[in-house]
């Protein structure tokens, strides 16, 4: 039997986890946290709460726990229509010397790799500077390796086709002793910052924030905090992308305008107060 907490136990444990890890576990949706802890327990053979709490004294265990709580991005070019939109946006920014992007909470490489391929195809790869927030060191190491899971390739290829990519998707990958990886030539100007969304903020304001399918896992009350962190990091005129079934905290009309309802793209106003 793996870890199976009651709602009350989850509430109490989330406070302990927050204190021990500096991650906002106490702001996560409780049913989500319960599921993730159950799966973690099953995977790692953690059967009792005492085992979990004792493990928190070990940094590697803690890191592994966080890595297993955050949810990886599902595939390359998820929602191809959104990436076509970003391609247009990058073209409109091609006169800038630098295009800054923030991915506040990275849990796997797909979103970052897709971004780099789109930048390459629009001729702005050398201008792209990405700040990627990560919660666990294991996550960062996996993302840095550029590993692409071959079992997802059918979906990746289908998405890329619908994105209307210029080349073959495999052309961006190389075989590294049997492991499929993003070519190392793409690997430039990526600044990894440890910490959750509110901590991983970039040093300077950015043109684009990719924050897709992360708010799903946080309580609704916490969304306003996340919105504030994004708002303060995005340039006026910059774009925010959230998941297609997510909702941005209302009212957003004071700061943002939804410019694509289907793909959930928001434009930050060029307000005089900025």
């Amino acid at each position: 039997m793996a870890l199976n907490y009651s709602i009350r136990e989850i509430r109490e444990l989330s406070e302990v986890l927050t204190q021990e890890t500096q991650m906002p576990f106490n702001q996560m949706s409780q049913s989500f946290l319960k599921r993730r802890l159950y799966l973690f327990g099953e995977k790692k053979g953690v059967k009792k709460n005492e085992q979990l709490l004792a493990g928190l004294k070990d940094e590697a265990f803690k890191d592994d726990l966080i890595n297993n709580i955050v949810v990886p991005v599902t595939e390359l070019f998820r929602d191809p229509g959104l990436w076509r939109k970003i391609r247009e946006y990058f073209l409109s920014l091609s006169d800038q010397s630098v295009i800054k992007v923030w991915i506040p909470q990275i849990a796997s490489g797909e979103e970052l790799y897709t971004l780099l391929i789109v930048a390459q195809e629009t001729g702005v790869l050398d201008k792209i500077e990405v700040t990627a927030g990560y919660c666990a060191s294991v996550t960062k190491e996996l993302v840095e390796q550029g590993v692409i899971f071959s079992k997802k390739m059918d979906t990746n290829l289908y998405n890329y086709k619908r994105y209307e990519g210029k080349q073959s998707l495999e052309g961006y990958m190389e075989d590294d002793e049997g492991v499929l990886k993003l070519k190392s030539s793409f690997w430039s100007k990526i600044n990894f910052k440890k910490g959750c969304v509110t901590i991983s903020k970039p040093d300077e304001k950015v043109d684009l924030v990719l924050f897709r399918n992360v708010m799903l896992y946080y309580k609704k009350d916490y969304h306003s905090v996340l919105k504030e962190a994004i708002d303060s990091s995005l340039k006026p005129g910059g774009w925010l992308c959230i998941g297609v079934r997510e909702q941005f905290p209302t009212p957003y009309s004071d700061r943002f305008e939804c410019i694509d309802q289907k793909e959930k793209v928001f434009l930050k106003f060029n307000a005089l107060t900025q």
Partner: protein
Amino acid sequence: MLLKYKAVVIGGSAGSFSVVSKILSQINHDFPLPIILCLHRLKHVRSGLLESINLKSKLEVLEPHDKDKIIPGKVYLAPSNYHLFIEYDGSISLSTEEPLNHSRPSIDHTLSSSAYFFRDKLIGILLTGANKDGAKGMKDIADKRGFTIVQDPATCDVDTMPKMALRLMSPSKIMSPDEIVLYLNQLVN
């Protein structure tokens, strides 16, 4: 109106589109419960299914957003490439977590989380389909004393899913699609 149940949850896979269309086209237009619908669907095709079901349905069918509140009389279809859960406060919770039973949305996830929230106030219906997804969810509903209906395998396009459920639990009823419609409509009458 006092009703014994507070929600209906339906899971289906291969062949279930026509059954769902039949149910929603023949259900009373004033059916008072929310219906939560989890159908296996292509994860990279976001549009089409909702529109097709809506064309036939007497009730409004929606693809919910994360954290949406559930409203009686509406039908909530799990969006493509997202799991649909019922959160502890009764709202809808979407997720991109790993596929379960090779499926996202997974019927087990929707059924089990619905069982956890609605307990004995839930009607769970499992339709035709080609894998084992939904069997455990139906068992969870039965364990919480909800009312469970499995489509009669003899009326299924693909009977694997109902048969897998029948191996795991004893449903309150085994019914044909026509009988399911009659049953739901008599809840109001």
